[in-house]
């Protein structure tokens, strides 16, 4: 059973993004870029399925500029066999990514697509669900536990009130939440090996997908800053201020 894992290159989770001084756009020119943290978890889960003998091959895909090859190499250094880059400089929105992935699923015929529930840059939380819809596959989102067995996946999902377990027939799309696993670090020998693993490069045109953005960004702005607070000495002063100044208790 083949597993396809999409990975996105995003501004690193530890970077606090700001607007450019002229307010025109988000300043990400010189910031660190990394694999989306949720995608690290999906790669790890796919690799564990392979190590458990459930999956036979893990293929990673990234859509975007040539630099996304670095993200594919990172994924291959932790156990994916090969990579596919969908090479484009167009700003990709979730529906376009889902359509690109559907075209790749048609070619690659995986039984499972494991994808991060959300990219931490645009915070859309859409691609996995959209891909499942386009393929007519069932979806199991926000997974914190996955058991694949007998053509089915039992998936425990993190929901607002606690946890929920559902069962989906394969092929299926699973989107992963934070507590599914702890991704491993790539070792130096594996980083070296990953450099020799193949990356195929395709274009949206070759896949027959129109990736033109559907939503136009009219404006970007930083949210209003909070007023500076004050340090209080102890619990007594805190309670007094909350009661008499902030009227919060």
């Amino acid at each position: 059973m083949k597993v396809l894992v999409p990975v996105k290159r995003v501004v690193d989770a530890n970077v606090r993004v700001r607007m450019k001084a002229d307010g025109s756009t988000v300043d990400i020119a010189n910031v660190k870029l990394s694999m989306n943290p949720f995608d690290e978890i999906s790669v790890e889960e796919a690799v564990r399925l392979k190590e458990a003998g459930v999956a036979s091959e893990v293929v990673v895909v990234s859509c975007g500029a040539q630099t996304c090859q670095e993200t594919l190499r990172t994924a291959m250094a932790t156990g994916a066999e090969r990579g596919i880059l969908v090479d484009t400089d167009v700003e990709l929105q979730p529906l376009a990514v889902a359509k690109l992935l559907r075209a790749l699923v048609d070619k690659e015929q995986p039984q499972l697509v494991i994808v991060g529930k959300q990219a931490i840059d645009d915070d859309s939380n859409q691609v996995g669900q959209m891909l499942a819809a386009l393929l007519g596959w069932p979806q199991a989102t926000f997974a914190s536990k996955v058991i694949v067995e007998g053509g089915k996946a039992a998936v425990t999902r993190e929901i607002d009130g606690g946890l929920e377990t559902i069962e989906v027939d394969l092929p299926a799309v699973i989107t992963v939440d934070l507590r599914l696993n702890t991704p491993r670090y790539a070792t130096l020998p594996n980083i070296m090996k990953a450099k020799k693993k193949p990356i195929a490069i395709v274009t949206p045109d070759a896949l027959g997908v129109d990736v033109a953005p559907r939503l136009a960004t009219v404006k970007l702005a930083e949210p209003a800053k909070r007023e500076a607070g004050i340090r209080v000495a102890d619990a007594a002063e805190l309670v007094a201020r909350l009661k008499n100044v902030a009227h919060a208790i």
Partner: protein
Amino acid sequence: MPILVIAEHDNQMLKTATLNAVTAAACLGDDIHVLVAGSQCAKVAEQAASVARVTRVRVADAAHYAHALAENLTALIVKIAADYSHVLAPATTTGKNVMPRVAALLDVAQISEIVAVESADTFVRPIYAGNVLATVRSAERIKVVTIRTTAFAAAAAQGGAAAVEALEPTAEVPASRFVNQQLTRSERPELTSAQRVISGGRGMGSSENFALLDDIADKLGAAVGASRAAVDAGFVPNDYQVGQTGKVIAPQLYIAVGISGAIQHLAGMKDSKVIVAINKDEEAPIFQVADYWIVGDLFKVLPELSCELDKLQQG
């Protein structure tokens, strides 16, 4: 054209998040329909019909809608979506699960987790963990939108008298099945709608130590939340998590205890009205968003705080 709001419920009670979505819908137009898909959910339909500003409730009652599985719910929504200019749902785990599936089948973009409506086609949504607000315009024929519940006040639960209409259920999609649920039971207010919240982080040190927060929560009538670090450490269940990818909340009072204030946590609480932080690290980033903070050992400060609240209650 009317606007459709997808009701969130447990087949017994309409959830407050739906009321927030109705308010967002009211920013878009006057003719607001609510879809109640569930199993033996007549009570929910009644509640939806009495929500102020709702003009019609459409009910699809079938066993396979009982657990809001995305495949079944999507089939139903897509069937009726052409009647609407906008399809809205609260950005809860249910809304986030279902709505992108709807959007993809309609071949339209989804606008996720809006915090403001600028016009019928233009919306504001946070990106980069809320550090940037993007205003986006959609030219799609149907706008599929999820709304951040904290950004829209709840519509009045009473005052409406909408007509209730039954919908023919769509066929069951057998490829996905509900197995079971483990819901966290609590006597305290629900985290996402609580007026006061006290959250603990890694600094709490253990599951047992959360009892210190429970004590204060009870005195304040507050809900208890947590940072990702505390959930990952197993101190509390996942549904306590406040943050970019957990619950986004904006209570009147938020007290962060032993939470350093990672970007991802701030994204989930920085719109709270009054923020209090208690941390032993003078440099903790949480202090940058706090209105009041105490630098000190939480194991000393919390019992003192508990004591002060007692004094206050005794007047």
